[in-house]
């Protein structure tokens, strides 16, 4: 398939990547990226990135998870060095070796996860690392003065004396912004700043951003939430599969068009409409409820049935209970209520291992945390999760030759690119790690596959291969619970889709007559889904 078919939708594109943006605006370019390429072992994270951020604007960078946004920002903030390409700040070409260099050039970063010391005051946090001194003594007076000035100038409403641990999330974020401004940043990078905020706080943040803009600062706003981007950005650059596909103005696009740019229209959509669903029920959840330590319901009263040969897709914005549902099914989180049945047996009280032994395969969302031993060789990773099953063990003993032989089989069948089975898992690219995991979990004829983002971070070819494997297994009677942020994948593979919102199923969707856009609006609770 062709990976770079031109976008067919009618979107008023300011610039595309193939032709660098017009340089008429050179004078007011705060940051300019040209041809940035960054390779990691076996994978290109960024390829030929081009865009210009104008001074005094909010410039949004949008893209799916894994599209390469964070790598790009790490490059811009000096945490990674690009293999090719150039960065210019205020028209001067720069080369950052450390974040310190970026800060010196006036670029500051507000991380998604706050980097604040809870037990220090706002003042202490702000000066941490660049403490003002007078005759060798800490000079908090001057610092306090400057914090007040900055806070007033940009309407941040931050007072220097409370302890950070007493602040709410929105306040903490403003402290982070102030910290960056204190260090003299003229360009602020905000990495998914709204991920941790409730709607009112998002509005406040946007007010702050407009204030910053008015004072001549430049904001680079990373997000995958399109309505927010449209609300606050002056220009939007879309990144897909590691490269910039377009820069657009929010006035000329709709959220739907942006989504199409993000997902692209060239995805090999897996159209498998001939149904293989049987009437034999394999996995059934009844009234599943999981509570947090504080007693808040993370998922509530979720019920579903998956039959032999059926793929049930779960659609939802990330963080709406998908992870908890999966972990409850795998026995990694206790159920507060409800039962899970596997082929008529109640497995609600079984430990994880017994569930896996009874034929539940598991492709975890976070492969590094839950799917691999990064500093172990590949063949030991073949054993992980299947420590009690042939060909990995014989009685209480590890069957080295059996496990090694089967690892080689997975590598051949799933096209894992590796020089051998003795290399450490950390040496493989993310996509190849994922292929190994998929191959492992499909081994031993599982009855159920719990697949969270099975093709995340995987290149296009491997993605199609993984889809083929899932489809083939489904034909042979595998029941699949599929969770994916890739709506085309979800619609293309699933026999039925449930939409999850705030821990509850809010709609049933028939994948044969739903568009990604309709599904997307159902996911945000806007309704419009058919049942």
């Amino acid at each position, binding site marked *: *398939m062709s*990976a770079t078919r031109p976008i067919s939708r009618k979107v008023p594109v300011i610039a595309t990547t193939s032709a660098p943006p017009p340089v008429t605006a050179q004078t007011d370019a705060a940051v300019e990226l040209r041809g940035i390429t960054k*390779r*990691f*072992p*076996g*994978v*290109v994270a960024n*390829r030929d990135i081009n865009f210009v951020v104008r001074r005094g604007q909010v410039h949004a960078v949008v893209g799916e998870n894994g599209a390469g946004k964070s790598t790009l920002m790490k490059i811009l903030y000096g945490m990674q060095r690009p293999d090719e390409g150039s960065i210019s700040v205020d028209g001067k070409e720069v080369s950052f070796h450390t974040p310190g260099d970026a800060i010196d050039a006036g670029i500051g970063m507000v991380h998604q996860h706050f980097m604040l010391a809870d037990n220090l005051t706002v003042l202490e946090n702000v000066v941490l690392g660049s403490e003002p001194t007078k005759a060798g003594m800490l000079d908090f007076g001057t610092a306090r003065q400057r914090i007040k000035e900055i806070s007033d100038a940009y309407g941040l409403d931050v007072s220097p004396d409370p302890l950070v641990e007493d602040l709410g999330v929105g306040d903490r974020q403003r402290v982070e912004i102030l910290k960056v401004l204190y260090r003299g940043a003229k360009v602020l990078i905000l990495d998914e700043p709204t991920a941790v905020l409730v709607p009112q706080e998002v509005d406040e943040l946007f007010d702050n951003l407009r204030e910053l803009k008015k004072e001549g600062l430049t904001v680079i706003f990373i997000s995958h939430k399109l309505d927010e981007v449209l609300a606050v950005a002056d220009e939007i650059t879309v990144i897909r*599969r*590691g490269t910039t596909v377009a820069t657009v103005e929010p006035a000329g696009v709709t959220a739907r068009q942006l989504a199409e740019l993000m997902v692209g229209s060239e995805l090999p959509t897996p159209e498998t409409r001939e149904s293989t669903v049987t009437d034999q029920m394999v996995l059934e959840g009844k009234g599943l409820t999981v509570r947090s330590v504080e007693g808040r319901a993370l998922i509530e009263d979720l019920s579903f049935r998956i039959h032999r040969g059926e793929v049930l897709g779960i659609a939802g914005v990330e963080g709406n209970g998908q992870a908890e549902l999966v972990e409850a099914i*795998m026995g*990694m989180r206790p159920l507060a209520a409800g039962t899970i049945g596997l082929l008529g047996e109640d497995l609600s009280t079984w*430990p*994880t*291992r*017994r*569930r*896996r*032994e009874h034929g539940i395969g*598991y492709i*975890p969302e976070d492969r590094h*945390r*839950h*799917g*691999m*031993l*990064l*500093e*172990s060789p590949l063949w*030991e990773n073949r*054993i*992980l*999760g*299947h*420590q*009690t099953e042939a060909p990995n*063990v014989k009685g*209480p*003993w*590890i069957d*080295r030759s059996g496990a090694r032989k089967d690892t080689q089989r997975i590598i051949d069948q799933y*096209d894992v*690119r*590796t*020089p*051998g089975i*003795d*290399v*450490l898992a*950390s*040496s*493989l*690219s993310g996509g190849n790690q994922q292929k190994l995991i998929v191959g492992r979990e499909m081994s031993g004829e599982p009855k159920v596959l719990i697949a969270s983002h099975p093709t995340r971070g995987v*290149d*296009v*070819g*491997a993605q*199609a*291969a993984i889809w083929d494997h899932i489809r083939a297994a489904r034909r042979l009677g595998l029941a699949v619970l599929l969770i994916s942020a890739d709506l085309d994948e979800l619609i293309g593979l699933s026999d039925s889709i449930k939409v999850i919102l705030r821990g509850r199923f809010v709609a049933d969707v028939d994948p044969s007559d739903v568009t990604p856009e309709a599904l997307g609006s159902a996911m945000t609770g806007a309704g419009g889904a058919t049942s």
Partner: protein
Amino acid sequence: MTIDLRRIALAVIAPLLAIVFSLVVTALVLVATGDPVWSTAKAVLDYGTKPNVLALTLNQGTVYYLSALAVAIGFRMNLFNIGVDGQYRLAAFTAAVVGSSISLPKPLHILVIVVTAMLVGAMWAGIAALLKATRGVSEVISTIMLNAIATTLIAYLLRKVKYDVAGSNNIGTKPIDESGAFPGIDLVPGTDVKVFGFIFVAIIAGILYTVVLGRTRFGFDLRATGRSQSAAVASGVDVKRMVVYSLLISGAVAGLVGMPQLLGGSTRSYSLDFPTGLGFTGIAIALLGRNNAIGMALSALLFSFLDSSSIILDFNGISKEIVLIMQGTIVLSVVVVYELVRRYGVAAEQRRVSRQLADEQPATPTEVPA
């Protein structure tokens, strides 16, 4: 094959670097205090290679090795069993009391004493294990506390069972009968000093350690938990249960640490001068030996060689505590060097793998034609 060679080379270079570095530091300390470096080193080497000192080195090494094994079992699971010290002392004391109060034929008598020691060691470690599994108490804190409790508990109980050692004001447990003696062996020619027969138990323990950790399901679960607890949980390992098992086993092995001295020494009793602090030396040796059975054996011998050969220094007017400086420097530099070498190893392999793949696949690696 080449990968294995590389890994082995890295594994050997790291401790050698640490030892060389500590030799340099030790030499600098000697220079700074105005002591001769060469003649000091020569004195240590000459004395350390005498047959009787070699036998003592083997004896002390046996004890150190068992202690390091006990620590390493925890380390492989990312558990820091600092409590080996209290575990072996309480185990040896209890075993001494039990052993002296019964009379059995030879092999059985030894067996009962050793099993008692292992059970007590496991039990003492089990307290920390239960606290960790049920209440999430850090094993570092609880084992340190349990060390202190063991010290006082032994002091208290020793008064209850006290048996005056003839001709001194030392007190100890009643000596164990001859049937409880673990026979020593004439391993080093040219000296009357016998080597603890327990050295064979230590060797067997080392082999078991390697086999169980490397070749069994249980060992895989344990190592997986140590490498990534979250991945182990997802793979179906019951981490709490593994915490309990591994600390129990660690404690049981710790129970063996006092046995060579108790059963192979001349008095066969636990008295006030029973060796202490072996559990901490075990931590250092496990670190230096990288939790590897052979690596720890070499490290144990190095430490015991330094211990037993340094005695000569006092006769030459040099404080033998210079050896402690050297051992301390080894441990500190080992921690740093291993982390550096580990990171280098991972990064080097990533580079090598991507280079090899790039050679096979000259086109861009991302876009694979389907």
